[in-house]
């Protein structure tokens, strides 16, 4: 595979997983929705910023088994560094941006 494809592949997989986890928790109250939406933004932005590195990891010999889940887990850990208020600001901005369009 070419690296462009790889990058798209990983992004796709990550998005699927992020989307899946968002769906799983859909029934939870609003607080979690905000954090879910923020997580999904965080993952999207991560795949953009680290596309090259993510490709390299995907092509590493030990990328098997639980590796995709571990990668997603490790990427989204960083959301815990954002306060609930900052997460809400971000999610709100995303929504208002969508409404404008």
């Amino acid at each position, binding site marked *: 595979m070419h690296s462009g494809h790889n990058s798209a592949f990983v992004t796709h997989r990550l998005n699927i997983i992020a989307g899946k986890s968002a769906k799983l928790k859909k029934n939870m109250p609003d607080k979690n929705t905000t954090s879910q939406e923020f997580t999904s933004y965080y993952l999207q932005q991560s795949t953009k910023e680290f596309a090259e590195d993510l490709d390299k990891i995907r092509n590493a010999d030990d990328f098997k088994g639980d590796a995709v889940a571990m990668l997603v887990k490790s990427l989204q850990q960083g959301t815990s560094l954002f*306060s609930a208020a900052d997460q809400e600001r971000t999610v709100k901005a995303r929504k208002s941006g969508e409404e404008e369009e």
Partner: protein
Amino acid sequence: MAKRKSYGGEGGHSGKKQKTAHVHDPPTSEEIYNGRQLRQLLAFEQDLRKARHGLQSFKNLLDSIVNNEDQDSEKLHILQEFLDSVKPREQDDEVPVYLPDIMESWSMAAQLNNENVMSAVAVVLALLLKVLSGKVNMVSYSLGICRTFLQKRQQELIAKNLSADNGKDFIISPTLRLLREAVCFDGGALAAPIFRARNNTFKSLARNMGLRYLGEGVEDPKRPSVRTNAIRFLLSSLKLLHLEAKRDLLSQKDIVAALMRHIRKDPPSLIHEILDTLKASVILDKKLPKEIKIRILNAHSLIRIAELYGYPEVPTENEDEPERERPTVEDSAHAFLTAACTDSDAGIRRSEHGYYPEGVDPDAVPSAVNDDQLVNFGIDSIPWMSKFENDVPVRNSLLAEFIQTLRPWSSTKQNELLVAIFEASPELVANYFCQKKSFSFDPKLTATWIGYAALLYNVVQLPVPSWFGHAKGYARVPPPTSVVLGNIIPLPMTPKALARCLSIKSKLASFYAIRLLTLSLQKLGRVLEMYQEASSSSDSLWGEAARRLLDEFYQKIPDIKEIIKCYLAMEQDDLLQRQAASRLLLLYYEVIPQVALRARFDVSPILSSTIKRVETSDKMDENTVMSLLELENLCAIAKYSPNMRWFARTADAPHSPFITLLRLSIEKTTGLSNESLDGVLYWVASEHQLVEDRPNSPGLYPLIAALKSFDTVDSAIWAFLDNCVERCARTPVKYLEMIEEQLRKAEISEDEDTVTCPLMMTIAEQIPFFNSSSPSKTTLKAFVQFLSEYLGYSLATGVSKPFIDASKELFSTGLTDQKLKEKLRIPKRKKHIQEAQEHHPNHNALLLNGRSDQAVKESGTDSIAQIQPQDLEQRLAVPITTIKDNSLSKWTSKTPEELVEEGYASSLIRLLLSEHPSIRKEALVNIVKVAAKIKDSTYENNEQVWLLLMELTESARDSLSDGPLPSVIVAFACKALDVLINPLHCLYEKVNLFLTSGPVWSLDKIPLIQNILQEGPTEDGAFYSEVSWLLGFLLESLRTPADVALFHKRRVPERLFALTSNPFMGPNLRMQILRIVYRMTSIEGGSNTLITRFGAVSWLLAQRDIATDAVERGVYQALVRRLWDTCDQKRISAWSKGGVERIVGQ
């Protein structure tokens, strides 16, 4: 005619062939029509072939009942008829034997070793019990049959069956099924007697549990292996046995080991059964003692269960088993292990002491410390304090052993398990990384490295246990520094690995390192707070430990310059990375300012470019928010940055950073919280005296409110304001004088209640220049409206009315157009005192710091903590280095390295302070000898050390007979020696220059003080390190009244006091100065000199009033008292006309 059956095989599963190596004649059978026929068929026969025929026919009958082929209960009737006919008569003296004919056949088969019949009997009896178990009206038969098994003869038959050779599955399996049916009968009514007969009934159980399925693929659930049958029997026993029996059963080591040994190879259904039973009957059994539980839940078992992680999940094709909604094997194993390892009732987890290793007593202070005298031997007097760097003993040794076998980097579940275990037993964290030597965080873009990073993130994120794990409040002694550090920045996060993460060409590696360091700094902040809490409640060991923790932490983290370098190299689109890096930098400034301030980071260019990015983003989306978060961090950093040019305009930006931020704050409000941005603006405004800095001043609020009253603010007004704030900040005094003048004119006294505003004066001054730029009519109109609003909001928020009136006059004079003059007025505006108060700079300082997760130290606004003299002594007294006379002889056998680096030479030098002339002279001779020895050696620093020693001896020679050498010369020689052995020392150059500048030192000057305080540092950013060295040196230079006199002569206190007006001096440096003051007070005449010559009392009071922390204020206050207590009170009282007394008495 009945179907032909395979011999002996698996009851209940007709038509399936048993795999076996034996080839025998298949058994014959016939259809049964009534009970009498059956009885005849089963009657005891010498010919075992006939017996087998009868048993096989019986089996067919039972099979059809079990398989629900017996539609009209006809078969069941035959069975009942048969059982009634063979029911033994109740006799008092004999225990009845049920089914005597079958038992006879069995016995005979056993004697003749007829395996087919031995198997057939077990098969039939197991089936029979199964059929009977569901029939309430036939309970008496099953009970009778089971009791018959418990008779000695039958027991032996069972034992013989059970211990058949390996490979005789067809005998062993049905016997185990038979036993299981018996144990389960009537809810375990007979479980206890069956277990009591365990010598026979549990015979070879461990061996049988080892006879697992060896074929291809997964074991067929319809043809369970011996192991499966044996385990089911064991599990049923575990479920149904009473406490005592269960205890005995679990104590059978071979059985427990056999259960776990092959668990990874077992079929899923069996694994679920095992785990479910262990959970229900062992873990959750509250009556079962913990020591029994860990017989089965030992490290070996846990390791085996952990092997189920990664158990291959085969999609089940069995449509006939609808209960497939069950969790996977991996999930069950994970849930089981999590419960077993974190719940203290499960028996595995033992209570522990968090950061205190097993075996230390954190409340025992060495006996030399006497509570009454509070002699402080420091943290080094605790024998275990630095013992645990390579190994940390723990109470949970079982768990410690177990977690070493996990692979948390390759499995998310194992990661979760390990983190859950760490959270439940924090003592394990430091131990784990000490043992796990193979764990290397050196960055590689592999899945394993990602796994490492994920684990480290989780570990650093773990909360600090309350009181560091000590029960009920803080202990007297803090936990070992290495353990605390191991929890804040775990061992794999070595300086080398972190530096590599930041420097290799991988955005991800540096991003992960930055996130980890952010967590570490947050945790450090929390831990330091806890140390502070602890130190106020007991002795100062905690204070010392906190300093040591910080020192060691500095060694472990990358220099802030590395972070800055990494940050500056980031691309504009890397929003997450930029946000993370700016956050980390801010934490450096907030948590460890000593390190942060070393790098003179000029934040203004990057602040400007970030402002630009936020400004130019055309729509408000999450990326803009991310940039805004970065901007907020940068603004907060800028507050700490002495080089920040808030009001300077650059070529590429229309306005100064301050005005740009002001514009952002007013314009970009959609859906955003601007609190921290506004906070920075208020802070800058009051810091640069644009507005008054006092509690009742509205600060920047009137200006912001006035600007907000416009939909869009004219660009000319922004330019005008930019000019005004720059002028006001540049020459605030000018505008303060203007205010005074206006107040004088209006004849109001300038007291605390008169609120004014310097910026308003600047605006008044600059209005004519706004006019002269010939603005358009609309602009002028807007301008006048703005001025009116500004005046209106100022009045509403409490600015003095006469001052406003005077300002309006000035504004009006500036405006040339009469019409405009008329339009200028003071409109009535609503008071928003509340809001204005909220934005007062002091509040905002809190708000800004509060944004980081650590709670901000509550600064009681005026309170002064009471610090007792002993407490002050603990904080500030530093013992004087003693002079050891035996140093004269000790040095001779040492190598040059040892002489210089292990302090032998320094001890010798200190002898020059001795009171006895003979010792001093002897010391001088010895120093010359040492110098010669070093010069002749190959020691790398030999030349410089020789030079130092010779200059010292030359300087000392003449004065030696008059008295001891001045302490300052001795202290300098010792301190300089430390510098010379370390070429990387920040003072290496200065000391060497000093040594080469002349052969003899003046005994009445203080070496290097001028060079350090006046000339600036040799290396960029080393100023504070140099000052710290100097302060240490000065402290050592104070021993005698003569030293105080020299300090007086050279005006040292004055220089030190001046140093503290530098707002960027860290608390540690301030503390060092206080220690010098304290030392002076303990020398005769020191306090007098400090009070009368250097104004120490008023300096201390001033320091006290600007301190933000109640304890700090207390220290200053206590030091004033100390001065008074140690001075010549009569003289000072007369000198100050009782002033000092009054201050102390307050």
